[in-house]
C-alpha cells in the first residue's frame, strides 16, 4: 500500500460523499420550489426537477463534461469527447476521472434546476425539457470551461471557488431570461401593475427544502477542494459556509421585520440561501469574519433584489430564484475581490482582483442571458413556451400530467386572497 493510494482513497471518499450531498440538493430544490408555489402545480414542478437531473446527467455525460474539461484550444470551449471518454490527464486530478465526473455532474444539475422555480406554474412541460437539455449541453459547460476548465477567465485569475457565478448565476440569469420572456402568472399583477402575493402551498416543505439545501452545501463548498487531505481548508470552508448562511438568514429576518412589520418566513428562508450562494465563490479565501460580512450583504441584497425584480422589473419569479442565485451569486463573486484575505481590496490587495471578479460576473451574465434568450425565444416561436390560460387556471398537474398531487385533500378553489 503506497502513500499515494491513501491520498487517492481519502480524496475520492471526500469527493464522492460531497457529490452525494450535492445530489441531495435536488430534493431541496424540489421541496423549495413546490412548497413556494401552488398545490395545483406541484406534480409538474417535481417532474421538471426530476427531468432536469435525469436529462442533465445523461447530457452532461455524453457531451457537457468534455466541453467543460476537455483540453482547451482557445480558452473558450473544451475539445469534445463523446461519453466523457479520453484521459483528462491534463487536469492533474488526484481522484479517479469518474469521481470527478460524478461530482461535476451534480454541479451541472444544480445550475439546471434553478430555472424551474422561476418559471413555475406556467411553463409547458415539453418546452421546459428542451431548455433543460440546452443548459446541460452547452450553456453551463462553456461557462465552466472558462473558469474551472482552464479557460480564459481562469487565466485572468478569476476566483469562483465553488460556483457562485459558474453554477448559481448561470442558473439565476437563465431564470431571469425565462421568467421575463414567459411573462407573469395570471393574477400576479393588478391592472395598474401592483404586485399581488400568490402564497405557496406548503411553507413546511419549503423550509425542509432549505434545510436540505443547507446540508447539501456542506458537500458543495468543501467538496470543491476535490481533496479530503486538505484538512484545514475543508474545516475552514465548513465554518465560513455555515456562518454566511446563518448571517444571511438572520439579517433577512431583521430587514423584513423592519420593512413589512412582521418577520417574513419565506423571505428569511431565501435569506439563508442567499448567504450560501454568496459565500460559495470565496468560501476558501475569506476569514470567518469575512464570511459573516458576505452573509449579511447577501441577506440584504436578496430582500431588495427580490423586491426589485418583482416590483420594478415586474418579472414574476415565484420562488425568488433570480434574486437568490443570480443576484447573490454575482454579489458573492464580487465580494471575493473585497474580502479575500489574500488579494482582496479590504485586506490591502488593491483593485486588481476586484476588477477581474466584476469582469467575470459580467462576462458570464452576458453569455448566459444571450444563449438562454436564444433558447427560450426559439422555443417560444416554435412549440410555444407557455400553457394556455385555461390550463394555467386549472393547474398544470391535471392538464399536463393528468393527476392531482393531493388527491385526498380539499383544496381551496377560491382563494381567501384576491
Amino acid at each position, binding site marked *: 500500500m503506497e502513500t499515494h493510494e491513501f491520498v487517492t482513497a481519502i480524496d475520492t471518499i471526500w469527493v464522492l460523499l460531497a457529490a452525494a450531498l450535492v445530489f441531495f440538493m435536488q430534493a431541496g430544490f424540489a421541496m423549495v420550489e413546490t412548497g413556494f408555489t401552488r398545490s395545483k402545480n406541484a406534480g409538474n414542478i417535481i417532474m421538471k426537477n426530476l427531468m432536469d437531473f435525469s436529462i442533465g446527467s445523461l447530457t452532461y455525460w455524453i457531451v457537457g463534461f468534455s466541453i467543460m474539461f476537455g483540453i482547451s484550444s482557445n480558452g473558450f470551449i473544451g475539445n469534445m469527447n463523446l461519453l466523457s471518454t479520453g484521459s483528462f490527464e491534463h487536469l492533474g486530478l488526484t481522484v479517479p476521472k469518474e469521481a470527478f465526473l460524478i461530482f461535476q455532474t451534480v454541479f451541472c444539475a444544480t445550475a439546471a434546476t434553478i430555472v424551474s422555480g422561476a418559471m413555475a406554474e406556467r411553463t409547458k412541460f415539453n418546452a421546459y425539457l428542451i431548455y433543460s437539455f440546452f443548459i446541460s449541453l452547452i450553456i453551463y459547460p462553456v461557462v465552466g470551461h472558462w473558469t474551472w476548465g482552464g479557460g480564459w477567465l481562469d487565466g485572468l485569475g478569476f476566483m469562483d471557488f465553488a460556483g457562485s457565478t459558474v453554477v448559481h448565476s448561470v442558473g439565476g440569469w437563465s431564470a431571469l431570461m425565462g421568467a421575463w420572456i414567459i411573462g407573469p402568472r395570471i393574477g400576479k399583477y393588478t391592472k395598474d401593475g401592483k404586485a399581488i402575493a400568490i402564497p405557496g402551498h406548503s411553507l413546511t416543505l419549503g423550509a425542509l427544502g432549505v434545510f436540505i439545501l443547507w446540508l447539501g452545501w456542506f458537500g458543495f463548498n468543501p467538496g470543491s477542494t476535490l481533496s479530503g487531505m486538505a484538512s484545514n481548508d475543508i474545516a475552514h470552508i465548513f465554518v465560513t459556509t455555515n456562518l454566511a448562511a446563518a448571517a444571511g438568514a438572520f439579517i433577512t429576518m431583521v430587514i423584513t421585520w423592519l420593512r413589512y412589520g*412582521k418577520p*417574513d418566513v419565506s423571505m428569511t428562508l431565501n435569506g439563508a440561501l442567499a448567504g450560501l450562494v454568496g459565500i460559495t465563490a470565496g468560501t476558501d479565501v475569506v476569514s470567518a469574519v469575512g464570511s459573516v460580512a458576505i452573509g449579511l450583504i447577501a441577506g440584504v441584497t436578496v430582500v431588495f433584489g427580490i423586491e426589485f425584480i418583482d*416590483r420594478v422589473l415586474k418579472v414574476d419569479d415565484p420562488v425568488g430564484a433570480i434574486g437568490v442565485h443570480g443576484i447573490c451569486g454575482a454579489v458573492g463573486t464580487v465580494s471575493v475581490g473585497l474580502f479575500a484575505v489574500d488579494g482582496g481590496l479590504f485586506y490591502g490587495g488593491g483593485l486588481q482582483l476586484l476588477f477581474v471578479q466584476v469582469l467575470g460576473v459580467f462576462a458570464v451574465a452576458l453569455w448566459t442571458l444571450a444563449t438562454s434568450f436564444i433558447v427560450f425565444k426559439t422555443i417560444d416561436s416554435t412549440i410555444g413556451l407557455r400553457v394556455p390560460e385555461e390550463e394555467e387556471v386549472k393547474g398544470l398537474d391535471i392538464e399536463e400530467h393528468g393527476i392531482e398531487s393531493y388527491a385526498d385533500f380539499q383544496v381551496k378553489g*377560491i382563494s381567501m386572497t384576491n
Partner: protein
Amino acid sequence: MSDLVKIEIITRQKKFEELKEALNSIGVAGMTVTQVLGCGLQKGKTEIYRGASYSIDLLPKVKIDMVVPDSSTDEIISITKKVCATGTIGDGKIFVSPVAKVIRIRTGEEGPDAL
C-alpha cells in the same frame, strides 16, 4: 308539516364547541355543520408576503344547519345570541326558513318524528 323550519346559524369558529354544548343541553341533537367563508360588515385584512400585498377578505366561519319544529325556534335563537354574541363585528347571523318535509333515511319516518 308547516311546523318545521330550518335554522341556519353562521358564526365564529371558536364559538362552535360552546354553541354545540348549549344546543345539546336544550335537546337539539341533530345538526349538520359546514365550513364556510364569509364576508359582511367585518372585513378581512392585508398582510405583506415577500414584499407583495396579500389581502384576506373572506373570513372562515362555521355554518350550523338544524331542522327543528318551529316551536323551538325562539329558544334556539335566544341561546345562540347568548353564546355567540361578543358585541364585535363578525358575530354572524341566524336565518330561519320553511321546510316542507323531513325523512329519516334509516326508518323512513317522516315529519317531526324524523328529527
